[in-house]
């Protein structure tokens, strides 16, 4: 690493910038201070010239100028050329830094950050854990600090408690791949300490990545105006010291409360394990068939090129989850991935599908209606 970058990368907040705690913070700050010192130089130069000239050449009314020189080619070349060269350098540094931000390494931990009015939600690809941002809880803590109900220690303790089951958690020193999405309007995923930002655009996915350099808790803001709750839509990023610590947290965050009814846990599975992105629960046709009224209905499918039909019972559903390419629902693309659910998760999901209505037929199976 460039020694200057190393000096700047000491993780203390400066007058201008927050503590640099990601792999991008050092280079971005270097670029920032390059532009900054160039700007300071020109600002001082221009201000000094203005001040000197307005003092030295101030004159009473009616005085005539001492010089009539109104052009100087060399000067024009100099003050066109120098800004041009400096601009090209700035462009180059910005380009270099930006391309690095756009080029994630292949072995990152994948997390989906979904924004909606006015909350964040984070899903972890490795075990499907689905963790909310809990903006409201953080706002409540903030309010209690301001009203004097909490000291800063109490607030920190309360935030730690909220963060056990909330916020964006990442391990230190490992590339993190974030996919950003939005459910309703524009939002923007912004972690100042990491110098990363990406708009969450409904109907599109955005990508960003980073490596966190230092364990700690940092702010995550929504940076794109999204209406009433825009300024309340913030949460925290927790950087864990080690991957093991992170995985321990993730396992707990991804675990189920087994005292809940089966169908309720099934709904959590539907969200956590990503079934939600292709299977609706209200009859809407997405990439896969809707789960509404699916259980017990007659299913038409293509099995290795041969059409067939079967009633969707427990066995049919389990088989479809474990071996999705065995029977591809008629009229749908063969795109379902193999999601390795546990036996319990399959049981809960099946109960959840049952709870969404049985034998209601519908467009999926016209024969049943006859």
């Amino acid at each position: 690493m460039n020694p200057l970058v190393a000096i700047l990368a000491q993780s203390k907040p400066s007058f201008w910038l927050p503590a640099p705690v990601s792999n991008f913070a050092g280079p971005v700050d270097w670029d920032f201070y390059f532009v900054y010192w160039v700007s300071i130089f020109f600002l001082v130069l221009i201000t000094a010239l203005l001040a000197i000239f307005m003092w030295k050449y101030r004159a009473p009314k009616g005085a005539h100028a001492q010089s009539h020189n109104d052009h100087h080619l060399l000067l024009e070349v100099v003050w066109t050329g120098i800004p041009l060269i400096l601009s090209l350098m700035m462009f180059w540094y910005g380009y270099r830094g930006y391309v690095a931000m756009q080029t994630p390494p292949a072995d990152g931990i994948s997390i989906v950050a979904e924004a909606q009015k006015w909350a964040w939600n984070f899903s972890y690809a490795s075990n499907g854990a689905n963790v909310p941002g809990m903006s409201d809880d953080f706002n409540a803590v903030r309010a209690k600090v301001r009203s004097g109900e909490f000291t800063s220690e109490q607030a920190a303790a309360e935030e730690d408690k909220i963060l056990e089951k909330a916020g964006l958690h990442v391990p230190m020193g490992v590339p993190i791949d974030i996919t950003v999405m939005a459910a309703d309007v524009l939002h923007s995923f912004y972690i100042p300490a990491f110098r990363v930002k990406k708009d969450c655009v409904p109907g599109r996915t955005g990508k960003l990545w980073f490596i966190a350099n230092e364990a700690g808790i940092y702010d995550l803001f929504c940076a794109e105006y999204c209406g009433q709750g825009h300024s309340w839509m913030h949460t925290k990023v927790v950087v864990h010291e080690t991957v093991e610590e992170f995985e321990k947290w993730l396992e707990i965050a991804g675990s189920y409360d087994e005292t809940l009814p089966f169908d309720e846990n099934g709904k959590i599975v539907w969200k956590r394990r990503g079934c939600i992105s292709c299977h609706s629960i209200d009859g809407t046709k997405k990439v896969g068939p809707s789960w509404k009224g699916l259980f017990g209905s007659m299913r038409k499918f293509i099995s290795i090129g041969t059409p067939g039909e079967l009633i969707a019972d427990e066995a049919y559903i389990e088989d479809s989850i474990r071996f999705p390419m065995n029977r591809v629902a008629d009229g749908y693309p063969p795109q379902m991935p193999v999601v390795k659910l546990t036996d319990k998760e399959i049981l809960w999901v099946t109960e959840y599908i049952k709870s969404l209505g049985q034998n209601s037929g519908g467009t999926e199976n016209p024969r049943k209606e006859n």
Partner: protein
Amino acid sequence: MSQPEMDAQSDAEIPSEPHVVAPEEHTGPSYLTVTKTIASWAFTLDHKRIGVMYLIGVLFMFLLGGVFALLLRTELFSPLALITPLFADTAEAQADLYNKWFTTHGAIMVFLVIIPGVPAALGNFVLPLLLGAKDVAFPRLNLGSFYLWVIGAIFFIYVLFSGGLDTGWTFYTPYSAESGTAVIPALVGVFILGFSSIFTGLNFIVTIHKMRPRGMTWFKMPLFLWATYSTAVMQVLATPVLGITLLLLILERTLGIGIFDPRNGGDPVLFQHFFWFYSHPAVYIMIVPPMGIVSELIAVHSHKRIFGYTYIAFSSVAIAIFSFLVWGHHMFISGQSTTMNIIFSGITFSVGIPSAIKVFNWIATMYKGAISLNTAMLYGLSFIFLFTIGGLTGLFCAVLSIDTHIHDTYFVVAHFHYVMMGSGLIAFIGGLHHWWPKITGKMFSEFLGRIACGLVFIGFNLTFIPQFVMGSLGMPRRYYTYADKFLGYHQLSTIGSYIMAVGFFLIAYYLIQSLASGKKAPRNPWGGNSLEWHTTSPPPLLNFHDVPDATDPYDFEHLEYNPSTGNYDTQELARASE
């Protein structure tokens, strides 16, 4: 033959002072006194009266937009609800109210104040005078532009009284497609204002092409004309794109046509492309005419020929051309492709170069000049300082890696206020002081003028420098409440805005006072030599008593100050009176 030699030769062919008789010797009604009925103002075709009406309208809207600015700065003095509870009960309604305030502030200041401010208000008054013409090319169209502006303004006032607007002045979809506030009236208002702007631009293009006086070739025009010409081209080419975009947004809201709203298969980023294709050139519509004013202010009040005339003229044209090629830099983090971001970043730097050229040429103009530190000149100097900061901080935003961090933060807010207000509006106020004697025929208090300029300058910097710091520390923009660590910066900023407000009220006070009791303005109080200083203050209805020939606008050598009249006479006249 080299360019300067050619200039010198053609200079010799044009008499630098065409008047034998001093315009003061002509007496007769001015454009202000020639008729006195309300109808004679309402249906006037005189560009000066239309300019004055624009001026009154724009200044009123500036007051309105400023009140909203003060409201929101006051609210941000504390992260708790401070003054919104006076108007709304629930926390949700209070947040909504704040969102309406910043939206209204932005929309009024952009569409009703800064865009029409210099071209339509000052430009209307000054442009035909600079050309030695009786009026603009299409006086009726000019009046039409003004009434379109009035109708647009009425729509905005209707929006204020019908629940407000909370989309931000940018109308980003899909929020603007679903917001429950008065989006459609606001869009219609902006659409109409767009036509006002297009007609003014068209009028100015034709006027400058067809109505230059004998001897005024393109490169003998005052630089303000180059600036208004470049601006007019941008207005005519860019504004229709805004118009159609807003119409599509209206159709999106009413019919759900699915162009911008992803729920109907549309693309929100497409809206941003369309919007900024206009609104980036619009930034230059706001800044290039002020640059033209500053070129006049610096030269006239330094009593020295403008330095690097052709470079300043071409830099206006260059800015106008580049302005159409950089809109994508508003979308560096929107998810548009990496390649596009890189291209837009590269082109964006090209806008910095002509801006730098202008600044250095203005400073060189001052070198060995005879500088009168008049109020107008102080605004010119303030402009150079503030525009330097505005321009340099633009570099941070153009560098892709830095922009990723500072995009949508207060850093950007401070940056564009330095450009649009610190530069655009300050130059507008400077131009207002420069031409005030010509417009009203009255002199204002220079003493109060300098104090007010100082207050505005200090207040402005105190308002926006803390915003740079908190922005780069990570404070996102358009926040109704904020983390406690940003408290100190917000409070400094609010105090600054109050100081600035005091300055503006002081300006209003002494300008209004000058109308009632100001000294009568001489024909040429500052020693300018462009044609507007060759007619009486205020000018007669048809501007000039004799049709003037072109002068060299930057030749101040032959002007002699007459302390008894406060006028700068030509040497022939000075000799004659001895």
